[in-house]
C-alpha cells in the first residue's frame, strides 16, 4: 500500500486544484523547446493533449494506428458532453456535477479528481465553441442542452447525434494546426508495441510502422498513453474494430499498475446481435432515452407470440405493456444510469419477456411522435433513426426500436495519481485509458468531458511539474541498451507469432474468446464463473500460441499480424478482469456479482471491505499479480446506497 501515493493536494475540495496550480513547478518557454513528449493515441484525450502541449512550446510526437488522427474512436460518440454551465437555470453547479458523477460511479471514484473534472467542464465548452464546433442552439442563438442518465438537470451539450465527431474534429484541427507549425510530428499508421524505461523513468516507445513493418525507436522525456479502453476484448462491442488495450497492457508489464479491470460498462441501448458473422455492435445513443420509452410485454404469452412473429409490438395494448424502468425507478424513469438500465433489461429477458430473438427490449417513440410531431423527433434523432433503419431494415418512426445491452466502455484502466501520472515516473495515462474519474460506472456524456478535461486542462499543467526536473536531460540517441532491449522484445514476439502457423484465423479465435469472456465475466458474474474463467483463459492463451495462423510476412502491411498482437493481449487482460472481479466480493456499478444483490435485485456494495481502488502489479509471466489497494476517502459526500426510485 505504501507504493501508492495519489498525491491529492491539501486544502478544501473546492480549493485543491487552484492550490495545486499555484504551487506546481513550471517549465519556461526556452526550456520547453528542449523537451520532447510522446503522445500515443489521437482520440479526444490524445489529440487535445498533443495540441495543447505543442501550443505551450513542447516538441510533441503523436502516434495513431489509423491513417489519420481524425479517425480515433472518440469520433463515434453520439449523444453529448456534460458541463456544469447551468445555462438552463435548473439548479446545476460544479458541486452537483461532481456529486452526480461520484454517485453514478457507485462511490468508487476519487473525490479530488472528480471535483476537478466538474470544475474544468465549463472551460471545455468554451474551448470547443471557440474552435468552431457547431453545437446545437436555440432560436435565440444560445446553446441548447439535453438530459442524460443519472442526472436531474439538463447539462448535456450536443451537436446532433455526432457530438463526438464534432469535438474530435475540433481537437484534430487544433492538432493539425500544430503539425503545420512543425511543433507536432505526426506518426499515423504506427502502433506502439513497447515502452522504454531508462533508470526507472519512461523515456520512449517502440512502434511499428504498419505500412512497411519497420520497427522504430522513439525517444521522449515523457510518454502519454491515450489509447482508450479494452472493451474489444469481448470481440463484440461498440468499439471500433481496431480499438485495443495493447499499449495499456505493455506499460502494465513494464511496471504501471492496472486498476479496476473488472469495471466494464455495458450500454443498455445497442442494436441486438443478429448473427454469428457479426463483427461489431452499434450503439443507439443514450439521448434517445430522453424521449423514448423502454418496455416489454406484461404477459409472457404476448412476448412468446412476438418472438414467433405472430404479433407486432404495435398490436400490444397500452395496459399490456410493462414500462419496467418507469415502474421500478419512478424518480429517474427511463433516465436511470446505464448499469441499472442494462441489468433491468437482462432481468426482463432472462425472465422470459424479451422480444426479437428473446434478447431484446423495445425503445418506443410513439408517445414522443404524438407529443412533439415527427419533425421534431427527426430533428433530434434523425441520423440515429436512419442508422437503425440501415442496419435492421425496420422503420423506427413506425415500429419501436429493439435494443439490448452491449459492451461499451471500460472504467478500469491504468492507475494514475492526481497528476495523471502512473506508477512509472514520466509515464502518464489520460482519457479512457486511465481509471480515475468514473468509479464503477460512467454516466452518459461524461467520457467526452473527461477526455477533453485531461487533454486540454489537466495534463498540460501537471506534466510540467515533472518535466521541470528534466530541463537538463539531453535527448537520447535511442542507441542506449534499454532501447535496443525493448526493440528486441518486440521483434522476438513478432517472430514467435509469425512462426505459429496453426489453422485458425485470428478473428475466429477472438470470437471464441470473446464469447467466453461475455459468458463468464460479462453482465453477471459469480464466484464459480470467474474461477472457471481463470482456468479457461490460461488454456486459451496456450491455444492461441499454437492454433492461430498469420499469413504474409512481418515486413509488409499485414492487418492479421496487428490483430494477432492485440488478441494475445486481450486474452491476458481478460484473465486480469476475471481475477479482479473474483477478488471484489460485492456488486457495484458495472460489476455485478450475483451473490451480492438486494432483495429487489439491486447491486449491493460492501463499503466496509471494498471501498478501495484495486491496483494490480505485474510480477512476471508465471507469477500471479500482486494486489495493491488505494483506500477511497469521502470527506465531502455522504456515502449511501444509490437510489434512483425517489
Amino acid at each position, binding site marked *: 500500500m505504501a507504493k501508492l501515493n495519489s498525491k491529492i493536494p491539501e486544502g478544501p475540495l473546492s480549493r485543491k486544484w487552484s492550490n495545486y496550480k499555484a504551487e506546481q513547478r513550471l517549465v519556461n518557454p526556452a526550456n520547453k523547446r528542449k523537451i520532447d513528449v510522446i503522445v500515443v493515441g489521437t482520440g479526444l484525450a490524445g489529440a*487535445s493533449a498533443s495540441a495543447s502541449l505543442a*501550443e505551450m512550446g513542447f516538441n510533441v510526437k503523436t502516434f495513431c494506428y*489509423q*491513417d*489519420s488522427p*481524425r*479517425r480515433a*474512436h472518440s*469520433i*463515434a460518440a453520439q449523444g453529448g458532453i456534460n458541463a456544469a*454551465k447551468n445555462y438552463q437555470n435548473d439548479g446545476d453547479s460544479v458541486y452537483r456535477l461532481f456529486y452526480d458523477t461520484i454517485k453514478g460511479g457507485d462511490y468508487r471514484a476519487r473525490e479530488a479528481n472528480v471535483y476537478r473534472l466538474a470544475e474544468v467542464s*465549463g472551460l471545455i*465548452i*468554451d*474551448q*470547443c*465553441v*471557440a*474552435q*468552431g464546433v*457547431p*453545437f*446545437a*442552439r*436555440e*432560436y435565440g442563438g*444560445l*446553446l441548447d442542452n439535453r438530459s442524460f442518465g443519472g442526472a436531474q438537470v439538463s447539462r448535456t451539450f450536443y*451537436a446532433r447525434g*455526432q457530438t463526438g*465527431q464534432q469535438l474530435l*474534429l475540433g481537437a484534430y*484541427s*487544433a492538432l*493539425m*494546426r500544430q*503539425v503545420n507549425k512543425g511543433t507536432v510530428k*505526426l506518426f*499515423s499508421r504506427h502502433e506502439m508495441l513497447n515502452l522504454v524505461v531508462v533508470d526507472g523513468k519512461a523515456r520512449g516507445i517502440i512502434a511499428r510502422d504498419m505500412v512497411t513493418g519497420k520497427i522504430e525507436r522513439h525517444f521522449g522525456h515523457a510518454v502519454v498513453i491515450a489509447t482508450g479502453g479494452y472493451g474489444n476484448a469481448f470481440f463484440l462491442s461498440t468499439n*471500433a*474494430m481496431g480499438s485495443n488495450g495493447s499499449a495499456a497492457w505493455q506499460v502494465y508489464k513494464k511496471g504501471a499498475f492496472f486498476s479496476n479491470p473488472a469495471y466494464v460498462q455495458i450500454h443498455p441501448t445497442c442494436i441486438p446481435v*443478429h*448473427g454469428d*458473422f457479426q*463483427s*461489431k455492435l*452499434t450503439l443507439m445513443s443514450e439521448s434517445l432515452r430522453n424521449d423514448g420509452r423502454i418496455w416489454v410485454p406484461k404477459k409472457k404469452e404476448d412476448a412468446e407470440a412476438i418472438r414467433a412473429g405472430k404479433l407486432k409490438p404495435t398490436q400490444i395494448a397500452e395496459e399490456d405493456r410493462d414500462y419496467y424502468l418507469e415502474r421500478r425507478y419512478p424518480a429517474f424513469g427511463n433516465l436511470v444510469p446505464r448499469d441499472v438500465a442494462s441489468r433491468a433489461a437482462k432481468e426482463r429477458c432472462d425472465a422470459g419477456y424479451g422480444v426479437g430473438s428473446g434478447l431484446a427490449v423495445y425503445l418506443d417513440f410513439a408517445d414522443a411522435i404524438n407529443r412533439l410531431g415527427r419533425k421534431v423527433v427527426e430533428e433530434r434523432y434523425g441520423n440515429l433513426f436512419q442508422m437503425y433503419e*440501415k*442496419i435492421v*431494415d425496420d422503420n423506427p418512426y413506425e415500429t419501436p426500436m429493439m435494443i439490448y445491452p452491449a459492451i461499451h466502455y471500460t472504467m478500469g484502466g491504468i492507475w494514475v495519481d492526481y497528476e495523471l501520472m502512473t506508477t512509472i515516473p514520466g509515464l502518464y495515462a489520460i482519457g479512457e485509458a486511465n481509471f480515475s474519474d468514473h468509479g464503477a460506472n460512467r454516466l452518459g456524456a461524461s467520457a467526452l468531458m473527461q477526455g477533453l478535461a485531461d487533454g*486540454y*486542462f489537466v495534463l498540460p499543467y501537471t506534466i510540467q511539474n515533472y518535466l521541470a526536473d528534466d530541463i537538463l536531460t539531453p535527448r537520447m540517441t535511442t542507441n542506449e541498451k534499454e532501447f535496443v532491449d525493448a526493440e528486441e522484445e518486440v521483434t522476438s514476439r513478432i517472430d514467435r507469432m509469425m512462426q505459429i502457423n496453426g489453422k485458425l*484465423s485470428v478473428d*475466429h479465435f477472438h470470437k471464441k474468446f470473446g464469447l467466453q469472456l461475455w459468458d463468464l465475466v460479462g453482465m453477471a458474474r459469480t464466484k464459480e464463473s470467474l474461477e472457471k474463467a481463470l482456468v479457461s483463459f490460461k488454456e486459451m492463451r496456450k491455444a492461441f500460441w499454437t492454433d492461430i*495462423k498469420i*499469413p*504474409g510476412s512481418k515486413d*509488409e*502491411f499485414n492487418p*492479421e499480424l496487428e490483430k494477432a498482437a492485440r488478441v494475445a493481449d486481450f486474452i491476458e487482460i481478460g484473465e486480469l478482469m476475471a481475477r479482479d472481479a473474483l477478488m471484489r466480493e460485492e456488486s457495484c456499478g458495472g460489476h455485478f456479482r450475483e451473490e451480492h444483490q438486494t432483495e429487489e435485485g439491486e447491486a449491493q456494495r460492501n463499503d466496509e471491505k471494498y471501498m478501495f481502488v484495486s491496483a494490480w502489479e505485474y510480477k512476471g509471466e508465471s507469477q500471479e499479480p500482486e494486489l495493491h489497494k488505494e483506500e477511497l476517502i469521502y470527506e465531502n459526500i455522504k456515502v449511501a446506497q444509490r437510489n434512483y426510485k425517489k
Partner: protein
Amino acid sequence: MDLTLKIWRQANATAKGKFETYTVKNISPDSSFLEMLDILNQQLIEDNIATPVCFDHDCREGICGMCGLYINGRAHGPDKGVTTCQLHMRKFKDGDTIVIEPWRAKPFPIIKDLVVDRTAFDKIIAAGGYVSVNTGGIPDANAIPISKKDADTAMDAAACIGCGACVASCKNASAMLFVAAKVSQFAHLPQGKVEAKERVKNMVSKMDEVGFGNCTNTGACEAECPKEISILHIAKLNREFFAAKIC
C-alpha cells in the same frame, strides 16, 4: 446468398495490380458488406487459398471515414447516404457478381489491395482547416450568439467524415467538396472570421499542390457522398475564394 467477387489485388504501392475472382457462399442478407469480406478473408486464410484481402475499416458505424470501397463502379456501393461499412448485403441479389476496387485518384496512392493513402486530406486541413485559437483564454461559450440557421448550416457542412468518396467519384479527382465542407462550416460561424481569407487561400492552394483536380460541376461528389453534403457548399467555397482574392 452465393456471390462472385472480383477484387483488385495489389501487393504494394509500386507493384502491378490485377483483379482476382473469389466466391463466397451462404452469406446472410443481414450481414454488412465488410462482414461479407471478413467471411471471405477467414476462408482465404483457413483454406490456404491466398493472403487475405486488405481493406481499411474501423468504427463500422459510418462515422470514422476509414472505410471506402468502390463497389460496382460506385463509391461506397449502391445504397444512398451510407458508407461501405453501413452497406448491407440485402442490397444485392443471390448469384450477383460484385466488382470491388480501391479509390482511384493520383493523390490517394494505393498502399495495398484496397487500402489507399489519404494523408493528402490531412495536409489540406493542416494548411488552414481550423480556427487559430490556443487552449485557454477564450470567452464564455454563450458570449457570441449564433443563429440557429447558421449553426445548422455549419453543422451540415461539418458532417463530412473525410472518407474521400467525393474524390473517388469525380472524373477530375477533385477534392472541392471536402475543402468546401470545412471552409463553409467556418464561413457560417463568427469564430475565425478574422482569418477567413487566409484560410480559404491556403487550403485551396494546398489542394492544388497535392494534386487534386478542379471542379467542373458534374455533381458526382454530392450524389455519392455518404453524408449527403450538398454542392451548395462548393458555391460557398468559390464565393469565399473569389472574395479573398479580390480584396
